[in-house]
């Protein structure tokens, strides 16, 4: 197998680092005898799947389906299989992912390594809740089967473990049945943050999935102005009988061909967009039928949308603030939005969501509370200083920052955010004492260089 030196970046295109890439054609090539990190679709935002001047193993071609039982929904596949492929194969047979992030162009291995979550986390938990077991190639090249019953400590260190416990080989997961490929959605306007919190907290059959888009340039009394979007899978009865209910249908995919100039997204253009979006989307108060692609993966219809932020890239800041009392989360999010709004930084995409209980992954991100995600162009001297201040708010509230999105978190803040880090370190020390699995993120956060 030959390697190729390449400049790689995560989805945020910051940072960019030179790595030695390997691209095996089959599962036996997922492991290198020298230190390495696995990389699936490169959809983590920062440096999780980078290894500056070191080995990066691309899993994109290790994507075989190994078993699918269309009666039980049990699926076994290689770690490089993407959620898009699973939907293509399984949705026409009546099965969908129980948990899905906002893009389907992610690998199974990546979904486990980041223990990703979706719009239904408050009900159904993180991605790991759909995972029955997986096999993991560990530091000496041997394969370990991991599940809740077998090597369970390694299972929970790998879930959310950012690829640092080994290379995930095969994954078994359980899909959920759906009657149709359609979603019934409903939008509500929230005039301020308080109303957004209230609407997100409502328990209702119509909000199996729920998420709020926030206009984070709104200030003063409108701070936290949002559109809260609910959704649930449509049943066959609810659709016209003539339609092929499980057909996904084609969707026009566009590609953003070039980097936009860095001034394209500024506080004027974004606030204009936000005003229009708030009025248009917030107006859809009656429920409407949409499809799985449009509902779950709106941005997947524009390939390379990350070029929107220009050549210097962007960082996504996603944090969760726990609901010890509802006020701590509310006050914390409010302070973050105030900081952001005061800095007149334009976050084109800002999302607020409620999260349910922790999964058990030692470094998993979700915890009961509210999570806020902001996309911020890498621009201006004070961006990183401002993000450090946001970290302080998060730490004080007992919350944490999502590693799959992160490119800049400091080590002290990280250690304060993840209380089960010492348990994770124990497992890492036992199965990989020489840090065979290592990444730029791991070194930055002190996960592999004691």
């Amino acid at each position, binding site marked *: *197998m*030959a*390697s*190729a030196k390449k400049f790689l970046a995560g989805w945020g295109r910051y940072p960019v680092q030179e790595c030695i*890439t390997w*691209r*095996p*054609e*089959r*599962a*036996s090539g997922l492991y290198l005898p020298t230190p390495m990190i696995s990389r699936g679709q490169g959809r983590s935002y920062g440096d999780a799947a980078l290894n500056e001047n070191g080995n990066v193993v691309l899993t994109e*071609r290790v994507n*075989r*389906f*190994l*078993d*699918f039982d269309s009666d039980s929904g049990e699926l076994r596949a*290689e770690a490089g299989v993407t959620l898009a492929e699973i939907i293509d*194969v399984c949705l026409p047979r009546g099965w969908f992912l129980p948990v899905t992030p906002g893009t389907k162009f992610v690998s199974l291995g990546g979904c486990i390594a980041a223990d990703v979550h979706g719009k239904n986390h408050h009900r159904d938990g993180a991605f790991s809740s759909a995972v029955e077991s997986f096999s993991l190639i560990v530091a000496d090249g041997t394969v370990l089967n991991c599940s809740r019953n077998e090597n369970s400590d390694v299972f929970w260190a790998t879930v959310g473990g950012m690829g640092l416990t080994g290379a995930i080989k095969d994954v078994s997961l359980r899909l959920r049945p759906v009657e149709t490929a359609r979603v019934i959605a409903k939008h509500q306007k929230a005039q301020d943050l308080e109303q957004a919190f209230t609407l997100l907290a409502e328990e209702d059959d119509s909000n199996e999935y729920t998420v709020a888009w926030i206009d984070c340039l709104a200030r003063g009394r409108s701070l936290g102005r949002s559109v809260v979007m609910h959704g649930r899978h449509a049943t066959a009865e609810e659709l016209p009988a003539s339609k092929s209910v499980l057909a996904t249908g084609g969707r026009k995919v566009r590609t953003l061909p070039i980097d936009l100039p860095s001034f394209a997204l500024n506080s004027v253009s974004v606030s204009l967009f936000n005003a229009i979006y708030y009025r248009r989307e917030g107006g859809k108060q009656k429920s409407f039928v949409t499809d799985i692609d449009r509902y779950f993966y709106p941005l997947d219809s524009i390939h390379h949308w990350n070029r929107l932020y220009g050549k210097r890239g962007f960082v996504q800041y996603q944090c969760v603030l726990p609901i010890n009392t509802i006020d701590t989360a509310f006050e914390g999010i409010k302070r973050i939005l105030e900081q952001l709004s005061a800095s007149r930084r334009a976050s084109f995409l800002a999302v607020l969501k409620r999260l349910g209980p922790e999964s058990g992954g030692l470094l998993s991100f979700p915890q009961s509370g509210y999570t806020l995600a902001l996309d911020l162009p890498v621009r201006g001297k004070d961006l990183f200083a401002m993000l450090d201040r946001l970290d302080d708010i998060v730490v004080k509230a007992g919350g944490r920052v999502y590693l799959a999105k992160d490119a800049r978190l400091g080590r002290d803040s990280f250690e304060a955010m993840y209380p089960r880090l010492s348990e994770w370190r124990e497992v890492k020390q036992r199965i990989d004492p020489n840090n065979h699995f290592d990444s730029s993120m791991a070194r930055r956060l002190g996960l592999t260089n004691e």
Partner: protein
Amino acid sequence: MSEARKILILGATSAMARGTAAAFAARGDSLYLAGRDTDELTRLATDLSVRFSVTTHHGVVDIANTASHSAFVKQAATALGGLDGVILAAGYMADQADAATDFAIVERMVAVNYLGAMSVLDQCAALMAAEGQGFIVGISSVAGDRGRQSNYYYGSAKAGLTAYLSGLRNRLSSQGVHVMTVKPGFVDTAMTYGLKGMFLVASPEDIGRAIVRAVEKRRNTVYLPWFWRYIMLIIQHLPEFLFKRLKL
């Protein structure tokens, strides 16, 4: 969709073979995947049957082991319940510099790309000629069109294969069996990953779909992607006094 055909893929674990198998499976054909890596063959066969809901079989064969070919081809045809098509994708390209210092590598390249290919295709041809129908696709290479200093051991074995396929096509055309020679240029596989000087690299999936289309059209020799025909036309027609001085 037309009736499912029964197709044997030799050297099924390469990326190009996988792309081709997927393209046949996508139109509903039954497949027999043959290669050396049993675990990988099992994985590939399951993958194709899950993705495309087709019947797949698999079995081990070493293309260099010519003595095993007669029994193997019979076994594959029995498993499939007949034989409508064969794709020879088995191939072995070692580094020219390594081959220049170790003749065993040259022997291996000839054994796989040329001798073994002739042996296994002879067995398939006999079976299909007896039935009076079917097709044989031999994946040769643009490297066989003219010997170049950077790759001539491999290239000469592929040149031999190209000539063999041409003769086989000539013999079988009156017996209802179609023989197609495929000459891929640069394809994005393990063979080319990280190599310097690659350009206009095609994906294995695109090559696979193009092979299926070319079989439908009963093409004799196809360059894939198509523009390689013209690149090679130029290379083949450079006068030798000039060609021998080029660093190719």
